[in-house]
């Protein structure tokens, strides 16, 4: 994964509470300000919403004074590298979730497109309508980008880790 360097350009970064109105504002801001063809911008839009809504819903750190649901505190960044746009999100999670997240992402990275579509259909059919879960958002990210998803877990203390995920959207579709 490319990391910020001389040949990358930061487009937007943010840390704080993420609610639906911020998701809407940021995604539409990006749609208007990224100079790429509309298919690429559309994919960035779709991937960003899936990933930052996962932070909003499932971050272990919630801005609960304001809302009871969908106000997770976390981080996101979108930047441009020579071949890709890179979307990174980060949030605090219970370390006990590290293993399942790692297993899920390894499965997504291992599967081909048709197998991923099959996994998405199976996951969607079995999902609870009240809480579909974070897994399908990661599957969708793998499908939309066609690239490997990168995960990182940094221990915070005995209970929590800081979970970072990065996805690359190709400039050429």
């Amino acid at each position: 994964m490319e990391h910020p360097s001389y040949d990358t350009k930061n487009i937007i970064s943010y840390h704080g509470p993420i609610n639906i109105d911020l998701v809407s504002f940021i995604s539409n801001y990006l749609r208007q300000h990224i100079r790429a063809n509309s298919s690429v911008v559309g994919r960035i839009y779709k991937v960003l919403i899936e990933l930052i809504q996962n932070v909003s819903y499932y971050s272990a750190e919630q801005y609960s004074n304001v809302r009871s649901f969908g106000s997770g505190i976390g981080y996101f960044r979108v930047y441009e590298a020579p071949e890709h746009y890179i979307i990174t999100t980060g949030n605090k999670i219970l370390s006990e979730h590290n293993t399942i997240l790692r297993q899920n992402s390894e499965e997504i990275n291992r599967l081909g497109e048709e197998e991923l579509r099959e996994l998405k259909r199976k996951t969607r059919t079995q999902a609870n309508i009240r809480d579909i879960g974070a897994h399908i958002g990661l599957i969708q990210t793998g499908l939309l980008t066609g690239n490997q998803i990168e995960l990182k877990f940094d221990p915070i203390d005995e209970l929590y880790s800081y979970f970072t995920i990065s996805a690359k959207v190709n400039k050429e579709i």
Partner: protein
Amino acid sequence: MKSLNIEAIPDSPYYPEVSFDVETGICVLRGESYMEEAYKFYMPLLDWLKQYAVEEKHTVTLEIKLTYFNTNSSRLLLDMFDILKKAEDHGTKVKIKWYYEADDPDIQDEVEDFEIETGLKFEMVPMED
């Protein structure tokens, strides 16, 4: 039974506009769909379709004009299609038209996945600019 209409809200573009017409059977979803707790928004739509198409057996034409929907909303769209499949299996005439943007490289696969999951056939219609 009454028509179900939910107007678009410019400040909340994550809710689609809904127009389910009891007289014509034309049911339209238009805009984007990525709201929180999607089931709360979609439950009245599912209940309306159950009564209209399954219980009262009215012909339905569902027109999907969504330019974006997240995976959470796709779960509820799947429920909507399952209801229409049930109606079709019981003899109700059902048509689903999916309007798509020409520059969306992913929509054909999305719709094909819904067809595989439900056994319904969707008509793909290009959106006009």
